[in-house]
């Protein structure tokens, strides 16, 4: 070891650096490298050491990590879009036009939309990988079930976001989807069994009280639907998915990290 320190090493052992990164210094020894992970709130999602195959892309495909990364991209680009978007029938479409026409080189909407498509695909492929390596087997059964919930939430997030541009593509895609809710058994006005939920001639499940009405906030797609989907898309579903994500990541660690051959 030479006595002469590089500029980076000087910086890394200074007061500011060591106050920000616990431990400080340039991690060179095995112990220091382990401490880097243990001392960082972000890195300590990871274990300190991994089996060799866990860092190989051909094994992991990196799809779970990418799904989380895209979720972060979508959160950031979504927050930026919220500054410019008003969820009312009067303004929604024109705000979209503004974003398209008035922002030079503006790609935030593209990042958000294509990111959403990409996340659906990466979540599917992550599930595919987990199945093919048998990683759902004990003790990871419950984490697989949480993963299924995360998949459903991803699709719901994408679905609620689909309405927000308030163009023809949006409302008719949501119309196809929300009409399904009207056919829910027992709870949809056009679903089987809904007529049974009645006292005498008074039906409980009608067009103004069924599952579809609850989903779109009215008999037809309109102002209430847009606000409802906006709130679900920006606050409600992200809140729920973050809770499940936290459990998902925590369970990965608790269930013994990435799956390995016995």
């Amino acid at each position: 070891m030479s006595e002469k320190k590089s500029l980076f090493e000087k910086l890394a052992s200074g007061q500011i650096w060591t106050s920000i990164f616990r431990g400080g210094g340039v991690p060179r020894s095995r112990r220091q490298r382990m401490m880097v992970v243990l001392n960082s709130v972000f890195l300590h999602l990871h274990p300190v050491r991994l089996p060799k195959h866990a860092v190989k892309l051909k094994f992991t495909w990196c799809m779970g990590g990418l799904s989380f990364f895209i979720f972060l991209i979508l959160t950031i680009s979504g927050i930026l879009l919220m500054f410019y978007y008003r969820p009312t029938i009067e303004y929604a479409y024109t705000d979209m036009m503004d974003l398209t026409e008035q922002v030079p080189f503006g790609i935030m909407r593209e990042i958000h939309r294509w990111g959403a498509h990409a996340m659906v695909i990466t979540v599917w492929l992550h599930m595919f990988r987990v199945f093919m390596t048998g990683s759902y087997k004990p003790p990871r059964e419950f984490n697989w079930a949480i993963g299924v919930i995360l998949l459903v939430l991803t699709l719901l997030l994408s679905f609620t976001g689909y309405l927000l541009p308030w163009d023809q593509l949006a409302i008719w895609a949501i119309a196809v989807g929300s009409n399904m809710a009207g056919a829910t058994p027992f709870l949809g006005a056009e679903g089987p069994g809904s007529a049974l939920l009645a006292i005498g001639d008074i039906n409980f499940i009608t067009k103004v009280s069924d599952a579809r009405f609850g989903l779109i906030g009215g008999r037809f797609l309109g102002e209430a639907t847009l606000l409802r989907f906006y709130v679900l898309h920006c606050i409600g579903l992200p809140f729920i998915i973050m809770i499940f994500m936290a459990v998902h990541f925590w369970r990965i660690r608790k269930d013994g990290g990435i799956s390995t051959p016995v």
Partner: protein
Amino acid sequence: MESFKSVINYISNPTILVTAVLLIFPFIFPPTEWFYKINKRLRLDKLWTGKGLLVMTVVTISFFIFGLGDYNFKSIVLKPDNVPISGLILLLIFFTWLSMSQAYKNDALVEKGKSVDEYYDAPNDKVLVWPDLVYVELISLILFSAFMLIWSIGLPAPLEQPANPAESPNPAKAPWYFLGLQEMLVYFDPWYAGVVLPTFIIVGLMAIPYIDSDPNGSGYYSYKDRKLSVSIYLFGWLILWNVLIVIGTFLRGPNWGFFGPFEYWDSHRLEALTNVNLSEFVYVKWLEIGLPQSILLREAPGLILVFIFIGVLPVLLAKTILKKYYEDLGPSRYSIFVVLMIFGALLPLKMYLRWLFNLKYLISIPEYFFNF
């Protein structure tokens, strides 16, 4: 060229496409020992070699390049929201290959008595997260961000005319990831295709680890020892989910009619509606006595058939060909497994009943919105 296009248009008809896929599937992803032997004998495992990947990719990409020369193909494939699906097709080929090639490699290793590729000698074979994993993650994030930027600059997000509730487009399509379910609307009513079936899919996926309770085969790619479960999963995922999405996106035009990939979406094309309910088959066509007044009597044939299918068939299977599974799984696991399988099998079954007999519903009680 034109004749090639018309051949493709013809064979991409769901009747032919789905039949072909159903016939080929068990040989490529064998569910049982018998199919597995044939798979080996026909050397179909060659698909999972480097050459196999090359052939599959080149064929798919050249089909797309060839297709883009056609106006009708181009106008649908290049619709901005459809672009991810073309990407998905290529990704599916690659990742199916990636998992299957490693699975077959591991199977060969196990056969020779060696340990699988992923085997590690704990704790000597462990690596540190910093730097071994962190830099892989960093590079993936940078590459993916670059990819997202290029995609976003190159392809503007779609924005159509302002929403107009009075003017519905033809066809009106759900977002692409739900088009497999929308395709099911052809064969089932919304309460089933849109509500009950998705619930079955979610519950069925969650049930996988509890049904396939064999603890072996975790943590490495393998096929031979997990034939049935992998085959069933791939059937649901590749065929019932993704092939139906591709059909729903690329091959369904105005009035949800079928159009080949090189066919013009003619919204004035007429489709004959000649579908008949099972009750009408029985009472009108065969017995020639007309439909009875009583709903229960009228729908008796369908009700009995469905009861046999869901109530009697699992018991029969448990006593005959699935005896081994019944003994392994026990009554509760077995019944959940078989009922889920039966509902899965109902999809292709109903498709064939429609194509062969124009059957509309097995049970049709419009009085209570119950059509099945």
